[in-house]
């Protein structure tokens, strides 16, 4: 059974193709995603999972096709409006993308500073998110000396701190041991239960089974191989 089946689609892809030079990374993808869905993107390394997420927040432009986010056509987003589009997303990057010379607190706070939030709110909100992700004690540490799992959690904290309606997570458990991975998944699940739409890329199909509901999108060589509904 599909949740929220009555709502308008929040993400729509029409025949999306992405080429890097001559290399095909996404091949004619058409897909509708409803608000509040949990989308699991699986497929082997190099299948185009990261690229699929990147075209959504315009880190890359599509070569062909159209993408609508909440009714906005991404092809028509000007560079001046781009930052505002990106603020609707929370992103967990495959390589974390933490700023090395800023503390954990500052890395997470950046999202809110960029959006012009008040310092008092920023402090409260960031500390709350760090508490939830279990990184409270490391708030004043620089990210580099932290373990992969800890950096991953900081990345997740940054993705959720702005309370985005859509969370894009690119292999958020990729470098984690089972326990840490479970913790990150639980976190994302919590935000999902609060109503966020989540797209999570992973080459680890096992993890899918932890979610009570959602859809699994299988990519292979940039082509959509199948969509299955997860039912437990």
């Amino acid at each position, binding site marked *: 059974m599909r949740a929220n089946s009555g709502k308008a689609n929040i993400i729509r892809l029409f025949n999306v193709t992405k080429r890097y030079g001559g290399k095909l990374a996404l091949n004619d993808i058409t897909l509708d995603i409803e608000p509040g869905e949990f989308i699991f993107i699986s497929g082997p390394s190099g299948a185009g999972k990261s690229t699929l997420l990147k075209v959504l927040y315009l880190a890359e432009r599509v070569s062909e096709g159209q993408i609508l986010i909440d009714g906005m056509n991404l092809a028509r987003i000007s560079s*001046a409006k781009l930052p505002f589009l990106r603020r609707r997303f929370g992103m967990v990057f495959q390589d974390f993308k933490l700023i090395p010379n800023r503390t954990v607190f500052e890395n997470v706070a950046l999202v809110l500073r960029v959006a012009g939030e008040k310092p008092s709110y920023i402090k409260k909100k960031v500390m709350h998110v760090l508490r939830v992700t279990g990184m409270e004690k490391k708030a004043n540490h620089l990210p580099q000396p932290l373990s992969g799992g800890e950096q991953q959690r900081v990345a997740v904290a940054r993705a959720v701190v702005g309370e985005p309606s859509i969370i894009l997570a690119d292999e958020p458990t990729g470098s984690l041991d089972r326990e840490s991975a479970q913790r990150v998944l639980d976190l994302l699940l919590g935000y999902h239960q609060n109503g966020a739409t989540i797209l999570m890329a992973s080459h680890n199909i096992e993890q899918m089974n932890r979610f009570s509901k959602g859809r699994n999108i299988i990519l292979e060589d940039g082509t959509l191989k199948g969509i299955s509904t997860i039912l437990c």
Partner: protein
Amino acid sequence: MMRFLNKVRTDIRSNRFLNIITIMTIALSILLVSVFILFFENASRILSAWNHGGRAMVYLSDSFTPAMLPNVKEQLISMGSIEKMVFIPKTQALERLKKEMGSKIQFLSTLQENPLPDAIEITMTAHSSFEQIQKAAARIEALDIVDTVEYGQGWLGRFLKLFNLFKMTGYAMSGLFLMIALFITANTVRLAFYARQTEVEIMRLVGATDGFIKTPFYVEGLLQGFIGGVLGMIILLAGYLTLSSGISRNLDAYVYLDIHFLSWQAVAIILFSSTFLGWFGCFISLKQILK
């Protein structure tokens, strides 16, 4: 706000060497420019004082008779730029001379004929610039009834030529140094920007506008410009104090020297300009980098 300033401070620290170079360059060019300004401000005031503030003596030829005075005055007025005219008949001039010389020179009283010419002392309206006086004097001298016009043109004129040459060199060098400072400032910003490229890229990805990204660079540019300007002014003031006390101790007895430091308006303009320089270097660089 405090956090923002703290961030700027750590940013500056992480690029400390470059920033010091930039501040020093700005300070040096500002120093050079202000040395010239200081020199010219003083030199032109002293020149004008030596020239009695735009006064000149028009010595009339022998054919002049007092009856012609209204006519001559009219001719002078028609030349324009004359503010005041005082006729000094030769008898009065002789009296004045006698009084000034006192009893020292006996021969004056033995003179049978007055050797002095009649004269008109004129004050020109445009006495701010020595060149204007020079031009007006040449025109007056061309009149038939006028013998010569005296305004200290001899050595003062020659000095003026030198002065002008110096002034041109000063402008050229100041311009050159300001360009160099601008170039170095712009370059520092560029390097700082590239050093923070990952950071900037991440900021973009989480939704930072160009304005948000640029602001710290501008703050840094403005600060560097301002600090450079203040530094330049401090060096100038120190140099001025050392030199001026030496000059007045040694020369005051011989010549009239009225030396001042830059007016506070000039200091304000210089500080504003150096701050602007820091900002402008930033502007050029970011405009280029961010398209």
